[in-house]
């Protein structure tokens, strides 16, 4: 899931300066699950911005709305009118939704309400952790199902660096050493011997290095 974190009210407030009608626009999928940008968070954000406006004595109309996903054309139909009404939109979606909305409404100024942080999972209620960097060329089969690219601070592919101490990464005691986890899991799987297989030089062309990526599936095209 895409994990995001709300921007501070002050930051959002600064971005909407000068507009008279602002729509805070929620996205009810990934960023709703991480309690950052769902329709409910949009409602809360709008309310807080309205209070900020009151405090600052600024005349501005702030409303909220939201759709299921800001990355699909069809969902926008129900809100076109609300979007047309606004001078500016604060999108509470991840970077994808913000851009998608911007593309669809080319004359509407669009502000991000959240920071898109990573692709991750709910570790426990209230804690989300990064698990994947969408490199486009998965090696999890060789690393006991734990990704060293996303979870090792140096994305080392052939083992821990010399800084791995007591299972923790050299850059922080709060961070698990991904390679420790890999070794532990390989041990549990009784496959520690596989560690010595050299993981070859990675093809990064499927990552950011290859430019904006695209998946085309003719069989699902309509």
């Amino acid at each position, binding site marked *: 899931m895409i994990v995001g974190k709300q921007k501070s009210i002050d930051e959002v407030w600064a971005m909407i300066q000068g507009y008279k009608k602002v729509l805070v626009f929620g996205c009810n999928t990934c960023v709703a699950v991480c309690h950052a940008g769902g329709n409910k968070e949009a409602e809360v954000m709008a309310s807080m911005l309205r209070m900020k406006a009151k405090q600052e004595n600024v005349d501005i109309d702030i409303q909220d709305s939201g759709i299921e996903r800001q990355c699909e054309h069809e969902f926008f139909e129900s809100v076109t009118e609300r979007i047309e009404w606004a001078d500016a939109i604060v999108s509470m979606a991840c970077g994808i939704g913000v851009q998608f909305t911007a593309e669809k409404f080319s004359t509407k100024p669009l502000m991000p309400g959240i920071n898109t942080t990573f692709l991750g999972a709910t570790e426990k209620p209230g804690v989300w952790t990064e698990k994947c960097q969408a490199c486009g060329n998965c090696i999890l089969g060789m690393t006991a199902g734990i990704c060293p690219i996303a979870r090792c*601070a*140096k*994305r*080392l*592919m*052939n*083992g*821990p*660096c*010399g*800084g*791995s*101490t*007591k*299972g923790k990464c*050299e*850059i922080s005691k709060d961070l698990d*050493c991904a*390679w*420790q986890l890999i*070794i*532990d899991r390989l*041990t549990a799987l009784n496959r*520690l011997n596989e*560690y*010595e297989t*050299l*993981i*070859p*030089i*990675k093809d*990064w062309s499927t990552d950011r290095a290859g430019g904006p990526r695209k998946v085309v599936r003719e069989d699902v095209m309509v």
Partner: protein
Amino acid sequence: MNVKTPSKLEKILASGQLAVTSECGPPRGSDPEGIIKKGTMIKEYVDAINITDNQTSVTRLCSLASCIRLKLMGLEPVLQMVTRDRNRIALQSDILGAASFDIFNILCLSGDHQSFGDCATGQNVHDLDSMQLLQVVRRMRDEGKFIGGEEIKRPPRMFVGAAANPFADPFEIRVPRLAKKIAAGAEFIQTQCIYNLDRFEEWMKRVRDRGLHEKVYILAGLTPMKSAGMAKYMKNRVPGMDVPDEVVKRLSGTPKDKQADEGINICIESIERLKQVEGVRGFHIMAIEWEEKVPEIVQRAGLYPRPVV
């Protein structure tokens, strides 16, 4: 004598004699004087000098230029190269550059995390990791090919080394990891500084159990302590460092003005003990910003004079 490169270090090791290397950190400025001074100071006492590559992620004069300086002075440099700052193009290009100046030794590393240095908010590259870099250098040398498979006109001739830390976690993969580096192409190993000799010996035993000491030259790393404070810092703050309590106690128990001497004593005693360990083929003395003590250590440890090959 079966050697693959013109490296003096390789020749000494291949001849079965104990090798001695040391390291110099380049300055944080463009003045080469520091390197020249350090090189001059220790040239009689060591077989080769490592030049660090922006160690602890602090920006310094580049390793390659420093190595060229030493080479021009007639010394034997070991080019340290981390994968943190350069992608595969830059790495290969720098290797060729070094080879053009007849630099015959390279140590392949991944490098400390940038968050420790002066550019903590920077991006790291790690297009390759250290093992992959080892493979790259060996392929360039032995097959004369770039990563992409094209031929290299004049392939580099480099004796290829890697680092090993016997003390980092998880301990159970410390030896497999060494094996992996050897498989990737490492011909010599310089270890992390050793203070816990028991643990090092245990590691070496496991190395010998797998016969790895026959496949690679292992140089035991040593760093003399300047003070009890330094010992404590190394123990508590430096990741992957194993400083036993006895060492800290021994230094703390020594009067302040004698602590430096005691640090040298410990270092020399360690060398004496490590000489007895089967598979230890030399010493890598990293006297951090204390290069002037290298001659004394080498002399007192009975490693002087250095052989001529």
